[in-house]
């Protein structure tokens, strides 16, 4: 096959001086990426968020090795509250267990559930949003109304309702991590789907989608190979924000009893067990609450920085 290439002066490249870089008018993508990374690392809020989050993740994984005592060891004194001291910097709880050790080990139950729930919610939400945005018309309407129905029920009410139903027949309430993940994940699906749907709507009308049709591409290819990579920005932002919510939701449900059962050192459970005694022994409630707060705030700091960078 002989291609007929006319021997013409090359139009794109200028005189030798302008020839060297491929794109003299723009910075190279690797440089842009490096500079963006540098900028994000220079942001104090991002670094702080990462440090705090990493700290809790390390606690969740290596809790028993880091913690000074065993989290359910009651053999330190009076089997009751004791205010912070040198031996127990955060005090002892109502059963005389070391609060610091319980907080460190207690990170695990939240961190095992929240990210998985977020991933499920963001994954399912992205798929639904993609389908709704791409097909539009009746698909959008039917799925949209269904999601509206889920959204109409407040998150916690929905979770309690489902989790109670699931543990019917058992003695008391017993909730497995899997059940928590699925319930929170489903509850997170509608808002994610809406965000992704609106991002897809903006993409769907761009000419590259039409260009794909004009070479005979089918819908699944257009959705997943053409459109999806262009809506990752909103999905990433949604994921970080949802992660913060997920931590909070897991802690709230544990506080309400839908989570780990005593003597687990779960944060929400610790607060639930002892908040009535807050005037007597503030440390047993405030420190677990601070643990929840720092993790949620840290994740939100990361979310903010990510959003800012993606917006630019």
């Amino acid at each position, binding site marked *: 096959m002989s291609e*007929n290439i006319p021997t013409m002066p090359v139009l794109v490249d200028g*005189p030798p*001086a302008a020839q060297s870089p491929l794109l003299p008018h723009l910075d190279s993508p690797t440089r842009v990426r490096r500079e963006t990374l540098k900028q994000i690392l220079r942001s104090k809020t991002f670094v702080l968020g990462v440090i705090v989050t990493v700290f809790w993740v390390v606690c969740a994984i290596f809790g028993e090795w880091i913690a000074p005592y065993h989290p359910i060891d009651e053999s330190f004194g009076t089997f009751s509250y004791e205010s912070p001291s040198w031996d127990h910097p955060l005090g002892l709880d109502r059963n005389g267990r070391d609060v610091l050790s319980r907080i460190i080990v207690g990170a695990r139950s939240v961190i095992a559930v929240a990210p998985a729930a977020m991933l499920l919610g963001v994954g399912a939400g992205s798929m639904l949003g993609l389908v709704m945005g791409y097909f539009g018309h009746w698909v959008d309407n039917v799925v949209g109304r269904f999601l509206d129905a889920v959204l109409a029920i407040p998150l916690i009410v929905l979770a309690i309702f489902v989790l109670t139903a699931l543990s019917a027949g058992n003695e008391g309430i017993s909730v497995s991590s899997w059940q928590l993940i699925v319930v929170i994940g489903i509850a997170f699906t509608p808002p994610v789907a809406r965000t992704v749907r609106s991002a897809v709507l903006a993409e769907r009308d761009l000419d590259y989608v039409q260009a794909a049709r004009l*070479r005979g591409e089918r819908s699944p290819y257009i959705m997943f190979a053409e459109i999806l990579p262009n809506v990752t920005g909103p999905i990433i932002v949604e994921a970080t924000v949802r992660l913060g919510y997920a931590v909070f939701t897991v802690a709230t449900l544990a506080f309400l009893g839908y989570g780990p059962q005593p003597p687990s050192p779960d944060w929400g459970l610790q607060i639930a067990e002892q908040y009535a005694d807050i005037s007597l022994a503030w440390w047993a409630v405030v420190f677990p609450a601070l643990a929840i707060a720092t993790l949620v705030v840290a994740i939100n700091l990361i979310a903010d920085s990510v959003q800012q960078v993606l917006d630019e």
Partner: protein
Amino acid sequence: MSAAPALEPEVAAPALALRDLELVYRVRGRDREVVRGITLTVEQGSSYGLVGESGCGKSTVALSIVRYLPRNGRVVNGTLEVAGRDVLALKGEALRLYRRDGVSMVYQNPGAALNPTLRVARQVEEVFALRKASRSEARERAMAALREVHIADPDSVLRRYPHQLSGGMQQRVVIAMALATDPSLLILDEPTTGLDATVEAEVIDLIAELQERHRTAVLFISHNLGLIRKACRNVGVLYAGELVEEGQTEQILHDPRHPYTVGLLRCIPRGGLRKDRGKLDTIPGFLPPIGADLPGCVFVHRCALAEEICHTQKPVDHQLGGGHQSRCHFHERAQSLPRDTASIPVEKPAHERGETPLLDIDNLAKTFSQDGRDIKALAGVSAMLWPGETLGLVGESGSGKTTFARTLLGIVESSSGSVQIDGRSLPAKLTDRSASDVAALQIVFQNPDSALNRRHSVRRMLKRTLAKLADVTGREADTRADTLVDQVRLPERALSARPTALSGGQKQRVAIARAFAGEPRLVICDEPTSALDVSVQAAILNLLVDLQESKETSYVFISHDLGVVRYLSDRIAVLYLGRLMELGPAETVFEPPHHPYTEALLSAVPTIDGAQRTRIELEGEIPSAADPPSGCVFHTRCPRFLGTICETDEPPLAEVEPGHLMRCHIPIEELRASQTSGEVPVRG
């Protein structure tokens, strides 16, 4: 006597004075220079045009004058005075009052400049309410302001929401608001981009007229030299944040003294230039990035006249008399700039038209239904297209150009009529077409940013297209992708780049490569250069001509730039309300006699050489396709309206000369006589 000058310093102060203005944008943590020391003066009551390609700092200058720089932008040096007032020193209330009274700005997109949720009345009256006018007074002044911009029925316009107005009408409203306060300076930032040529001409005439009447100083920012010529007495040419040449508009157009200006003027297809008479000249290379280190002349990397000194030493502004100045070491021989492309006529083998045309389009029609009403976007178009031929498609927006293109492609399914390709019938729906038919008809879109998936590398796009349309995969696809990239004259390294790393022109080359991947028979070019700078446009047009020659591809070329259409087209079709008004060889359509509609379109185009044509005014706007006028659909606006026959009978599309079809009741000889007489028709 000695104290007198100090008494009235403000009267003598120019409307706008920039001195050594330097601006930076902070991008990813570094200050990057955008405006590199601009000194310019706009005297009171005069008009000044600022031209340059995108990215050279035009809009940044405008934003700094109204103190609306983006958050990462900052003036680092120089002064900026409007009517003698130091704008950079203004703060708080003083800044608000300055924006209220001192300066007005008209933006590119009037749709975005008006609040979509408020009626026009509320927004125009607000301008006066800000000056403590009572409600009834504000309403009265709003009416007067709209009348001033020739809005015939201000009452009904005031009662509407912006989206109920056409683009041209929106821009009139914005201009009325901008002028309502008699500002010292009016800034127009590409005020007619996105408007039809006919509407654009009206808006430019309006601006010129108002400027004359109000004696308002105008800073007109545009990339279109023809427009600047119509609207401005003086012009400054901006390049990479420096004013490289400045002077009276006619001087600059006829005696340019900077190689950049020379190159810019050569890129424009004009004077009836056609593809068979030679290539367009181009400016090689790229605009340097913002913040680039430019110790010498800013244009040095793209200048064929550059010598050693240009790299090392910044040229001074050479005064050439009459206010004409050029920032070039070799200004006296700027016009000897060698061409970047050979000017030899393109040798085109005479087309012997075969027996069967490539496309035989018969009575193609498309009716959309919207809110229970039928909108005839395409009302029966018949045409033939031969291999290797370009059919230019012109008409205002709403004339059916895009619907025609989409119907051919099968993205939109035609309601009636048929299309034959090589004598075979072509299914109306894209999904019903065979793979080879899909590959045969391809498109190059208007906006390359939107046409390319920004997450895919060029290689991936081309290989996927090759796999789908040419059934070529693996090693062979790689070779073919290399060839394609080479044919559109992109460096091989472009293959691994993503669109975000490419310039506008390079993106359009990728889009062209993709369209050509499946060896198409026909490529529809939907305004492929309207989003590009003129220097890039020239290179893209040259490329399209080359590809057509080597591959015998046919084009349907849609554009509202008639100079471009004329350059590229063999035949031209003029559409109005979904109907063919005229169809004929390019030269015939562009020279009288032509259809009165074509005549009006042509008269609206601003030229950069020769005398300005007198514009034939078209009354009102293009009627709705849901309710087209009776008889000849153009009769409501026709400047050569004959009488009752035009209102009752639709003229047939008749062959008035060999190969020249026209839909008009006026006999051809009569048209010829009146159109060559030089008299401008005015509707009685």
